[in-house]
């Protein structure tokens, strides 16, 4: 009995060692490819940076359109372009490494699976980045506008917008990564439906008097500017 167990353990150890030995050249090939492409990425990024600085790219982009600066003001267009080139080459290195791994190992299905998943990863990363930038931008916009409109609950409003965009982004990212499947869609639908229902109930039942008083105030509000404000001329 004990001999059988010992034999089984020996066999499994042997199989695992053989498997690792088979995978090792592929892993080494992957690491070498990645290192080479990291060096290339650094080189390309430096080259692109030099060219863009010589072309006065930041000034040109800043003049023609403010959209990049508006959404991501702490990074210059040159910095963003350089980063894009760097990570583009790194991703290319990962793909080449995977290809080398596939060629030198006897496990083509692993590489195939990863190859098929890489576009989803890239898409999810882009979505996550864009969602974060958008959430911060919209949150600040709402906060400033609400404060300038003298709304007491400005911060709450801004926080609401920020989390709304972040939750939406998270749902999109998970969907893109094919994680959670229909649970994410369902949870998202229930969450949003719940929020809308809660608001409708709050307005319809709990805050009925408050809303009607607010509407009454709006309807009887004089259309003329108050005398105090009329006396001040900002320009």
């Amino acid at each position: 009995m004990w001999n059988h167990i010992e034999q089984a353990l020996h066999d499994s150890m042997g199989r695992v060692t053989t498997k690792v030995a088979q995978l090792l050249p592929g892993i080494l090939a992957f690491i070498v490819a990645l290192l080479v492409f990291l060096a290339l990425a650094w080189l390309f990024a430096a080259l692109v940076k030099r060219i863009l600085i010589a072309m006065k790219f930041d000034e040109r982009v800043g003049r023609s359109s403010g959209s990049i600066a508006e959404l991501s003001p702490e990074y210059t267009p040159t910095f963003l372009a350089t980063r894009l080139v760097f990570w583009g080459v790194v991703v290319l290195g990962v793909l080449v490494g995977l290809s080398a791994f596939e060629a030198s190992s006897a496990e083509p299905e692993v590489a195939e699976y990863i190859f098929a998943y890489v576009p989803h990863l890239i898409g999810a990363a882009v979505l996550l980045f864009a969602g974060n930038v958008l959430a911060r931008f919209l949150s600040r916009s709402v906060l400033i506008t609400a404060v300038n409109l003298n709304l007491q609950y400005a911060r709450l409003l801004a926080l609401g917008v920020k989390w709304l965009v972040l939750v939406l982004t998270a749902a999109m990212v998970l969907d893109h990564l094919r994680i959670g499947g229909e649970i994410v869609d369902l949870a998202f639908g229930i969450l949003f439906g719940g929020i809308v229902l809660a608001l409708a109930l709050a307005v319809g039942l709990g805050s009925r008097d408050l809303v009607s008083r607010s509407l009454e105030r709006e309807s009887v509000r004089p259309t003329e500017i108050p005398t105090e404000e009329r006396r001040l001329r900002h320009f």
Partner: protein
Amino acid sequence: MAAIELPATLQKRIEESGPVDLVIGITGPADAEELRAKAAAGLKGIAAKAVVAYAGSAEAEPTAASTDGVQLAAYPMPENKASLAFWLDVAAAQRSVLELATAWQARACIVMHNDLAALEPEALQLLTEPVLEGKSDLVMPLYAQGKYDGLINKSMLAPLSRALYGKRVRSPVAFDYCAGASASVKLTESGTVSGQSETPLLWPANEVAMSGGRVSQAAVDIHHEAQTDGLDLSAVLTELAGSLFQQAETNAAYWQRVRGSQPVPCYGSVHFPQSDREPVDAKPMVESFVLGSRNLEEIWRLVMPPATMLELWRLARLEVEQFRMPDALWARIVYDFALAHRMRRMSRTHVLGALTPLYLGWVGSYTQEVGSATVEDADRRVEQLARAYEEQKPYFVSRWRWPERAS
């Protein structure tokens, strides 16, 4: 870059008529007949050969020949497609008028608001005489303003322009002014950079001061009806302050060398309107400031150094009656926002939007200070603020050169 494409008929007229003494350009549409009548009466003895241009189509021009030495000309209104902003439209129209005057080789060009308030003999004489007699290259208006008029200008535009460009001009951006031939060319070229989607605001006094031209002021008794009715205060502030901050960024090499300021010659006697001795309720303005300090702290911290934030924190805790914003603090706040606009620490729209509650805080403080004062006293108060801007300028220069060094 041409602000307008002159129609062939107008170009032909310019060639046929030859150089003129004066071009009066109305920066908007106007009734041609009313214009002719008012111009003929107002221009007597001022200019022998004058052209009055207004925005409109050539077909609408009166066909009757000129019998009073005043020619009428319609110019196409420039289309500012990129923006619906009021002041940018005014600036585009002013550039067109100046370009027309340059094409006509006019000795002087009056840029005028289309309410025609400045088309009066006295105002025309005060604006044109220094230019036609060669005493000045640019005459800016010194409007008769009350204590509570032109508050954005008093708090920010005029003192900042004075501190940066060294000329004590009360209205650096105005609806009416007169430019000589060389100044017209300079102003037409200013701020128009190829590739830009929209033309920026025009700051005539600052531009002419930078080119070494002679700037003067004319005390004119003109009142324009509130131009910002229906416009959002935050949007107006963003547009005006943003433009001045942009100009400061473009001309940083110039203003860093300017020390102090010089008075400019003033023609005519200053008209002070009747004193409004009734104080304004500052509570809504102070409350807006307090609301801003409670909610925008995170944004303000990115713009202003800790010392300024501490002072604002103290101010926000004062009772309305005790609320006073020191001049030095306000000047530093404006300088910090100009720097943040340049540094793009966040979106420029956000930077300028976050300035509104601070501006309302200043308004709240100012209205309480001048509430029972005469217009003359309020004027002296504004002069004191302008001096504070000059005194704080080294702080701005230092932060501009070493922005990461917090003071």
